């Protein structure tokens, strides 16, 4: 008798009520699973779980967002008023974006050393950038970014300098970059902040190249050790201490 009671009670409940309860249950369960699925999907982008990428066989290449727009462009002259043309501004911006592609995106995506930079740096700057300043100027030796890679920045401010005849001799490009990407290193995504100036000048052939730089970089996440280094190009070699 007692054993039949629930069934009897259930039978006594209006059919509509039973159907409604079942529907609510299904909705709540579905929503809860959706939340959990969403959360874990979000977690997988953080690079904290290898298991989340087990279905990588057919996964498309992870997206790289390189969004560093040109900002204010001004020219100051030691002689008559000068103008920095849109073509010159674009040429400077191309060097900047090429630098980001070569020095940041490539090594982070491939975990390989940066290749030839002679098209972007003049000889003096190249020697320093690929020598004592390599850990600062290039994003090598860091965990490979396997998820979305965001290279975003404030608009690049360009200030050009003209000589006493009004001819443009160089320009500075101010960078304020925030680079983030998910790696397979558990814990946290890689984040790089890079700020400072590039100094660019046209070479003998008219191609704009980096002739100097004043950069500060901070890296965090992806299991990086919190060690610090300072390097000053042109100063005594002893002033450069350690690497990443």
């Amino acid at each position: 008798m007692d054993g039949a009671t629930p069934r009897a009670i259930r039978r006594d409940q209006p059919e509509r009520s039973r159907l409604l309860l079942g529907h609510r249950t299904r909705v709540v369960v579905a929503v809860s699973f959706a939340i959990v699925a969403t959360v874990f999907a979000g977690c997988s982008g953080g690079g904290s779980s290898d298991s989340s990428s087990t279905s990588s066989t057919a996964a498309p290449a992870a997206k790289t967002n390189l969004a560093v727009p040109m900002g204010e462009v001004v020219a100051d002259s030691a002689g008559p008023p000068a103008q920095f043309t849109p073509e010159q501004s674009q040429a400077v911006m191309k060097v900047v974006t090429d630098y980001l592609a070569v020095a940041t995106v490539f090594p982070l995506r491939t975990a390989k050393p940066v290749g030839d930079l002679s098209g972007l740096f003049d000889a003096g700057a190249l020697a320093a950038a690929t020598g004592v300043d390599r850990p600062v100027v290039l994003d090598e030796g860091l965990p490979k970014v396997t998820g979305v890679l965001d290279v975003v920045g404030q608009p690049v401010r360009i200030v050009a300098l003209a000589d006493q005849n009004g001819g443009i001799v160089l320009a500075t490009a101010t960078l304020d970059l925030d680079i983030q990407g998910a790696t397979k290193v558990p814990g946290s995504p890689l984040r790089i902040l890079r700020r400072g100036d590039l100094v660019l000048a046209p070479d003998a052939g008219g191609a704009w190249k980096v002739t100097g730089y004043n950069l500060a970089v901070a890296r965090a996440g992806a299991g990086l050790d919190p060690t610090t280094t300072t390097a000053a190009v042109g100063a005594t070699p002893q002033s450069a201490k350690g690497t990443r």
Partner: protein
Amino acid sequence: MTRQGRRRRAVAALVVSPLLCGILVAGLVSAAWLALGSPQPAGATWFQVTKLGSARFIGQPDQPFFVLAVGTGARSDDPNESHDDPGLADAVHVIGVNPALNAATIIDIPRDTEGPTGQKINSYIVSNPENDLRGMADAVSDVTGAPISYVIRVNFPNFVQMIDEMGGVDIDIPAPMNDEFSGAVFDPGPTHLNGDQALSFSRDRHSFTNGDLTRTSNQGLLLISALATLKARNPSGGDTVRLIATLGRHTKLDGIGVGELFHLGEYALTLDPANIKNVVLPVGNSGNGTNLAKTGDAASLLADFTDDAVLQNH
């Protein structure tokens, strides 16, 4: 408990558990995101690097070099508009820079110092108008033994405008100054000079018993103070462009272009003013007429200076 109750409790547990789990995970993820999303991540690794261009333009970056800084009394670069002064150089300073030591020395040359052909050193800039700066540099090199690579010259109005466009100079005035000729009226101590005041400070020789000797030392002090003032503003690359453009508009250059001057300026801004010595060339009244001649102390000082562009033993 009834079977139906147990089933409801089971269903509830099935529903609530994933929700709690999801909220927990979402909270952890949010916390991590916030931690990493801060502008300067905790435990961040900071690097700083400065590419200094000055040394690249002298052949070998670590080699010492010498700059001649000249201030003339010309009221204009057009002699017809400068009746009060033909452009005599009453400010003559050899700046030695040693990049490897990250140090510099300023040797202040009194204007009456006898030059290689018996004239006062301040007149060599006007004796050969077609080659004024290089002729002046050659004369100063003869006196000091320093091979001068670059010359920078400024006249009165350019000096005033340049200082004003720079935003003035913070300086610690070493001694009271009260000179009606130059207009220098200053109490000792820290003060901020605008262009006119900086010119007065640089011109005053009547407030001191040794006249031009203290004046030339003060001029060297003003150079160091100007550097310190600019450094304190922590200029960006763009700021340095503006400074160099200002400098270029108000100076005449020899041996260096504006582009190179930019790199030299960037390098100068890395120098610690405390690592810049300011020393007056030892001279005495043993020259022809009112000329001053180098004293015996000058030889060892200049030897110390010219060997690596900075003084170590003086």
